[in-house]
């Protein structure tokens, strides 16, 4: 739990956002413009480096905010949630990837649904 989460293949910048109850919050992001014209966003939970709301708890508003930030359309937008490996003895802190699907409700995402992905599947999705 003490480790510093560094930029890697799935995170190359920070995204600051107002989290729940306007709490200043931060996650890692990687934004990939794929050959098929779609944008794939990987949002990484950075644990102690995030002062506020975790990605999972704010995933629908966060996905909306990032989509607006990159000026993308919902139909061209793929969102993946990433939790990095914290090298803990506890399996809850292993690396995971989930594709998150939402319903689009007049300007914002709602009703998130998570589907677990393997790293190989994520790498393939990044290629487009």
């Amino acid at each position: 739990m003490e480790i510093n989460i560094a930029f890697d293949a799935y995170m190359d910048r920070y995204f600051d956002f107002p989290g729940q109850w306007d709490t200043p919050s931060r996650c890692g992001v990687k934004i990939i413009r794929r050959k098929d014209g779609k944008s794939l966003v990987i949002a990484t939970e950075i644990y102690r480096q995030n002062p506020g709301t975790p990605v999972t708890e704010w995933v629908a508003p966060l996905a909306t905010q990032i989509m607006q930030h990159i000026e993308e359309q919902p139909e061209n937008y793929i969102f993946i949630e990433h939790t990095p490996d914290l090298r803990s003895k506890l399996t809850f802190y292993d690396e995971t990837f989930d594709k998150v699907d939402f319903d689009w409700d007049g300007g914002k995402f709602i009703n998130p649904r998570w589907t677990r992905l393997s790293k190989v599947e994520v790498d393939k999705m990044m290629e487009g």
Partner: protein
Amino acid sequence: MKFKLIYPKWEKLEGQTIFYLPPHGPVVMAADIPDYVDIDFTDENVEELIIDETPDFVGISMMLTTQVQRGWAIADQYRKLGKKVIFGGISTMLHAEETMLHADSVFLGEVEGRLTDIFEDFRKNELKKVYNFMAKPPDMNLVGPANRDILKKDLYYHKGFRMVDLFHASRGCIYDCYPCAVRYLGGRGFRPRPIYRVVEELSQMDNNRLFIVDNSLALDTAWEKELFKAMIPLKKKWVSHTIEDKDEVLDLAAQAGAWYVYQAVFDTSDYIRNRIKQYHDYGIAVEGTILLGLDNQTEDDIKRLIDFLLEINLDLAEFTVLAPFPHTKAYSDLVKQNRIFDHNWDHYNAGKVVYHPKHMSAERLQELYHYAWDTFYKDEPQPMKMFNLISRVINREMEDGTYQPRRRDLIDVSFGKMV
């Protein structure tokens, strides 16, 4: 102005020794309420709540998820009488959106320096729906002594024995533990109170036995050592969560009156075995807190863990099943995996299984929870082990002259009721 402050009741765990401690949230809140307000406090766990038109303004303070539905029901009744209701406390923050449906106002965050304005808003009939201070924790210099004068202290005695008073020396936590919501509630930073503020409050407390409710006393070695040094002359005897495993810290803690600690026992490693021994070497007893039903536990793991507890001479053990409280990683993970099947908050008491465990059925985990309690306390029941702990503290109090005898007038009374 008459302000009715209520701490809602909740159903206690089946088959366990029942005791009631004076609640902490309401007394911390009361310390910030302006002097012109007349506070009438009811802890519904130890006395009957009479809902009538007497109060001008009603406050409901909730700590546990198992209190929220009762809190909402109380608010609904007062609001039918035309009374304004404000909610605060830990579980108000955990369940804020739902609570807003039953409230005129909800307070989110920590109260110090905030309530004068809120009572003024009430007087002007300009109460806001939400007072959101989640991202604005107060200066810890403002966190002064709690107002325990609102408590009816005689209600917190069992057969003449006084229960511990709750006290806190710090807020927040640097960790993000799987079942814990402190990261959301108190922030990701550790915020200790200045030592002079801690001593000021402790010096005013007439109870010699305390429960220091800080999430951990293992977050800042220098502060911990200063804290314990400052506590030594006060001769309090106290219970706390984990204390840091450095010998010099444990030595000071013992001198400062450490009575017993709640220590998480999460595996059967030598680390845990040595940790327990180390506490015992300093005369500090240990109540193991054992969380059952995590994804890394099979049925065999749980049985082995219980055998291990019997080997390492724990003084007490408290078994719980994982309760996925909102704003914890446990909750997020289980929601993601669609594994929560029971959304009745009354059942989130850490004794009922509300989700599908990974390696067994929910029913089997429920059985193992009862098996754990029964097996650990088979040879020496829980009341006997608790009596042993109390005997130890009485001996220490007699040695240093701080022993307060049992109240003879309350010898036949348990938490306000004749026994």
